[in-house]
């Protein structure tokens, strides 16, 4: 496959996954604030996770719901807004429309065309919850079309690669909020912290699963265990790195990025939570994000910018 094609496919799916995750974070922040949470506590995480807190402060100053929403959803100046993500995803899809299934292109294109027509007024009318559900649903549809119509060849693997690399980054960032001092033994916390960790679970649609798997109350250690180590949880770091590593093995077993992904996966698969979090969840998360970025760079060098 053309290197440029692989590049477009990879960024297409990364940006759709990112848009979905932003919608997830916003949805949960919104629910928290509706149930009486302090505005800053509810909305700051959404900014931290998506990055760009500084640019936000320059533009809006205080963290208040309406500004965070307009920044994270519709602002073209924010490269990580849902608007920007879907624009970039659509541009990349456009460049490879001869490669991807027609249905896939149509879904991405029509999502973008619809989003383009949404302004602050219409967003208020629809409600943030309804909007976030719509974004998630479109992302599910994209994945469904990918799965059920794409040939299992390189194009498919690069699409999946983008999805899982982005997802692992997002899950890690999500874990990073209020992670200071959290270790594998942090079981009992304040009521507000408990609310926070429940929200974390809800944002990755894992609250019910958590309840089903553990009889315990929601605790930081329990959530970290689920979102880092659990191989059955589709958004856990374990699952993401397993998938990334398997895909890279298929694309090129001898590439440097394949070795890096395998090593990252092995650390999670054969590691123990108590050791991984020995220096605190915050240290683990920032190291994971750094390693993940390095892996992304290596993937670029190995496949996407060949000459």
């Amino acid at each position, binding site marked *: *496959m053309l290197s440029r094609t692989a590049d477009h496919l990879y960024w297409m799916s990364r940006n759709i996954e990112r848009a979905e995750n932003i919608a997830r974070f916003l949805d949960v922040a919104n629910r928290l604030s509706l149930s009486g949470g302090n505005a800053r506590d509810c909305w700051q995480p959404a900014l931290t996770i998506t990055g760009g807190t500084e640019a936000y402060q320059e533009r809006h100053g205080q963290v208040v719901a309406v500004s965070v929403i307009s920044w994270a959803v519709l602002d073209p100046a924010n490269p990580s807004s849902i608007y920007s993500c879907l624009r970039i995803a659509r541009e990349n899809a456009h460049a490879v429309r001869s490669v991807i299934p027609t249905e896939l292109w149509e879904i991405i294109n029509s999502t973008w065309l619809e989003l383009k027509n949404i302004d602050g007024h219409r967003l208020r009318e629809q409600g943030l919850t309804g909007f976030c559900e719509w974004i998630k649903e479109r992302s599910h549809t994209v994945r469904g079309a990918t799965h059920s119509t794409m040939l299992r060849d390189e194009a498919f693997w690069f699409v999946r690669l983008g999805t899982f690399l982005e997802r692992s980054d997002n899950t890690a960032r999500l874990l990073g909020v209020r992670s200071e001092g959290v270790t594998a033994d942090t079981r009992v916390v304040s009521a507000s912290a408990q609310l926070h960790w429940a929200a974390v679970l809800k944002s990755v649609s894992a609250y019910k699963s958590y309840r089903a798997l553990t009889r315990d109350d929601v605790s930081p250690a329990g959530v970290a265990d689920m979102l880092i180590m659990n191989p059955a949880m589709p958004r856990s770091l374990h699952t993401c790195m397993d998938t990334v590593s398997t895909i890279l093995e298929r694309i090129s077993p001898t590439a440097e990025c394949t070795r890096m992904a395998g090593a990252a996966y092995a650390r999670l698969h054969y590691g123990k939570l108590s050791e991984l979090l020995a220096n605190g969840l915050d240290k683990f998360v920032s190291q994971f994000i750094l390693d993940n970025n390095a892996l992304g760079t290596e993937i670029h060098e190995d496949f996407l910018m060949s000459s």
Partner: protein
Amino acid sequence: MAFDEMKAPDGGVSSPYRAYEKWLLSAAPDLLPRKHEQADELFRRIGITFNVYGDQDGTERLIPFDPIPRILTSKEWRRVHDGCIQRVKALNAFIHDIYHGQEILKAGIVPAEHVLGNDSYRPEMQGIDIARDVYVQIAGVDVVRTGADEFYVLEDNLRTPSGVSYMLEDRAMMMRLFPDLFALHRVRPVDHYPDLLLKALRSVAPPACDGEPCVVVLTPGYYNSAYFEHAFLAEQMGVELVEGRDLFVDDGLVWMRTTRGPKRVDVIYRRIDDDFLDPRAFRSDSTLGVAGLLSAYAKGGVTLANAIGTGVADDKSTYIHVPEMIKFYLGEEPILPNVPTWRLEREDERKYVLEHLSALVVKEVHGSGGYGMLVGPTSTKEQIETFRAKILANPGNYIAQPTLALSTCPTLVDKGIAPRHVDLRPFVLSGETTTLVPGGLTRVALKEGSLVVNSSQGGGTKDTWVLEDDEC
């Protein structure tokens, strides 16, 4: 009065439209407008649009689609079919001759200065041999009709003719919107066009190709107005859609950059103009092309479709000579005539034209796209006098033609169904053989009375049906 394709000489409905008319009479009155709206919605979703240049926001326009088909009998089509094939064969022979022995110039049939002084003549091509001597793998021949048996060729498009994706998508749309109509008619299929195209392209693989020929479509990129068509054709043929930056030349061969290293390319269906193909040989500021492409091409390392330098044969000064070419190279009489054309460099013809300017169309020899043109009947006295002065200053730069009454077809407009002027662009493919699918792209001037079918000036498209023999 223009010829109405739906009317029979006795005032009734012409034979190809009879079943359609019956169907239409029994349909609900709002059926066509409803289907029309549906089509717009679908086209927008599929993204069959024309990009508007310079608009980064991705503003795209739909080319208006008319839901009423243009229907031709098998017999009517046969003439167009044979005429187009004959014409493209002669044009291919002409281009080969021009870049080799130049027999037609020596014979005095085409004046040498018309050819060798032409901007589209590429001296770099002189003496170069290309696969099967085919220069124009894909041609778009613009045909107009003025009567039951009167078809003329208005123009040959031999560089990078576009529009074939609309032909295919219009058919797909019609089948989706009106499946019952296809049960009532036996419409000859067009959807094998991509297969024929791929076959033609593979058949002209260069001598250096030693295995299965690798074909690619070369596009200027996704901001190009015809990007949809480039992507569509690549997808339909199952080949890579590449940009200039995906290719490089090494050791006289062309390669594309892939995730598994360089891969050889044998045939490039290029949708980039000559000028931009190779910054080393042509325009050095081109970022769309591939450095060294011409030298690889000249050495037989790769085939370009269409060849470099075909523009020399679709110029208006060459157009005049096509009927003579057909006699010269094929020894045949032209099946489809040219539109009568006066050359203003000839004194007697110039005299006639200057006396009849208000009734004629005058065009610049090298112009295209409706620029530098005088349409006598719709021009003011002042415009005509200004143009007269331009002609007198440089008569050799102009030709004149009668204002043709293009045929009309029933078309859906705001107030219902009304006749509108149409033309037809069949796409002729040349490789091992010369062939074309039945029909082509019908363009329709949606404004009442307008003769301009260009999409840039409010023209739309229609599905073109050629019926099986036994229906007429």
